[in-house]
């Protein structure tokens, strides 16, 4: 069965500290992995996807098929990064995304 696991419910860091939000998945095929973010009082929105191999707002994520992981990283956290982050998996285009339970990132000064 397809599953996405985000082991941390809450991650609190100080401004300027590195951040790593963990995501592990289980899927027998070749998945497409995403990170979605929900800022306070805003809609859930796409942050980045592995297929693009891009950096958005300083965040990067690398798909590690050996470890079945797609951890989200940022070298220096900012207060505006405080939000709820969801890792998601898609089996193929048109199919539903499977979400992890989310990690709340809190960045304080």
């Amino acid at each position, binding site marked *: 069965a397809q599953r996405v696991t985000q082991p941390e419910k809450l991650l609190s860091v100080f401004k300027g500290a590195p951040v790593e939000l963990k995501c592990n998945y289980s899927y027998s095929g070749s998945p497409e992995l995403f990170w*979605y973010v929900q800022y306070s009082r805003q809609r859930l929105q796409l942050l980045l996807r592995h297929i693009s191999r891009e950096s958005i707002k300083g965040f990067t994520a690398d798909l590690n098929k050996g470890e079945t992981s797609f951890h989200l990283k940022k070298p220096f956290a900012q207060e505006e990064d405080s939000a709820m982050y969801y890792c998601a998996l898609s089996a193929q*285009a*048109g199919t*539903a995304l499977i979400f992890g339970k989310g990690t709340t990132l809190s960045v304080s000064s």
Partner: protein
Amino acid sequence: GEEVAQTPKHLVRGEGQKAKLYCAPIKGHSYVFWYQQVLKNEFKFLISFQNENVFDETGMPKERFSAKCLPNSPCSLEIQATKLEDSAVYFCASSLSSGANVLTFGAGSRLTVL
């Protein structure tokens, strides 16, 4: 439009009453998805449509829940005889027909069953 529009923002129902939620996907998007989020927990997939056809309904409860996407009308999610455990935020999302499976989400409809 360029946003997924969901109405109402908040709906309050007594146990046993009917609840109906609406979603207008982005113009040109062929896929519509409904998710249920209970207590800011994970997103539970309910059902998806490809245009007006049900694409995947594996997450849809067998009883009381139904959904439609008719041409030239918003999509709808209806719950007959609501129960307390139906209290949740219901999110709608849409995506293009092909290419990367990027979903654009609506703001959600909060259903409170008293």
